[in-house]
């Protein structure tokens, strides 16, 4: 399970927490939580991946609100620079984007925007509506159309 899902979950976390080390720490916490709570997973309520995804997303968002994180953020600049040089192996193992960018290019601009901002930039629909001055209903409609378009592109039936 770890091998199968850790990449996708780290992808989600690292789009919310930009610092790589911290993101991996959260990934570890997330899997501990999954391990702890696997009994509470209810297949009636959705797929296993969605359940894990929500744990990961909430854990990451909680982290951004914590004190530790806001303190860390200030000293981040130098550290990020150093860690970028130091931890080049992290970036090398990234497989993000190759097939994904191709896929997103096939979406109409408006739909690509919502997918990109939610899945790759970590915005919620509400945040998107506020920041880009769009009615929430519009964001939701575009998200729905985008998911349908992706479903067809990915041939999911």
């Amino acid at each position, binding site marked *: 399970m770890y091998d199968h899902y850790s990449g996708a979950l*780290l992808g989600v976390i690292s789009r919310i927490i930009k610092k790589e080390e911290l993101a991996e720490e959260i990934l570890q916490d997330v899997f501990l939580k999954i391990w702890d709570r696997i009994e509470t997973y209810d297949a009636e309520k959705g797929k296993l*991946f969605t359940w894990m995804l929500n744990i990961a997303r909430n854990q990451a968002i909680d982290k951004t609100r914590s004190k530790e994180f806001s303190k860390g953020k200030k000293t981040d600049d130098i550290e990020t620079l150093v860690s970028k040089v130091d931890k080049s192996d992290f970036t090398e*193992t*990234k497989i*993000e984007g190759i097939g994904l960018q191709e896929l997103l290019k096939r979406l109409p601009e408006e739909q690509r925007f919502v997918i990109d901002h939610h899945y790759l930039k970590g915005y919620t*629909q509400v945040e998107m509506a506020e920041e880009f001055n769009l009615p929430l209903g519009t964001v939701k409609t575009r998200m729905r159309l985008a*998911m349908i378009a992706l479903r067809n592109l990915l041939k999911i039936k």
Partner: protein
Amino acid sequence: MNVEEYISSGILEAYALGELSEHERAAVERNLLQYPQLRKELDLIEETQEHLLMKAAVQPNASVKTKLFASIDNQKSAPKVVELKRTATDASAWKFAAAAAVTIALVSSYLAFNYWNKWKTTENSLSELIAQNQRVAQDYNTVNDRLDQIEKDLNITNNPAFNRVVMKGTANAPDALASVYWNESTQEVYLSVQQMKELAQENQYQLWAIIDGKPVDAGVFDANFDGLLKMKAVQAGAATFAVTVEPRGGKQTPTLETMQAAGNVVKG
């Protein structure tokens, strides 16, 4: 409730995206139980989301896995067992059984998927191997046929009953060289070409045997063939073999001015 409208409001997407309040989530979950169509739609949304995020995966360092498994081993397993023992009343035993069942179901579906994948891979490699095998068998047959042909040719060239007549190029084609293997008693004639240039499409070479000063047709041929070519039978008494260029299909009488190669029979 109008299911279509409910779906197109995008609430299922918001549910899958994890953006609903506790209250809203509960409402969606109630509706999911009631309307199978919602369930189906949500499955599609979740599947799409999973595909998308799998594509956007970022592989963690190997150290994360090591650390994680170590901390699961050290910290989590011990207290977990104790906790279960302590709360082993009837009700929680059922809960535990249910949880165990879910876990087993999860693990076995994951394993099943895993094995299915492996089986698929194996199946692919098998059909590849079968195809490869067929290719090898075909190659083997080709080689075998060719070997048979060469063996047959060798039997003729090694047979003392066959007289070899070397036909050297004439002034028309100084480089031409071909040989006739002629068995006077069985009248069989085989031809092998060492060097003769290719002719235009409408022309062919024709082999002649000269018997009592008269040319006798021994068949037509093209320049490019491998090994020995069986020609028309030639009766005893041939003194010379010669090759001319004729229209495709050959002629009754040779066009002597086109003679390419000729050689006399040397009686052994």
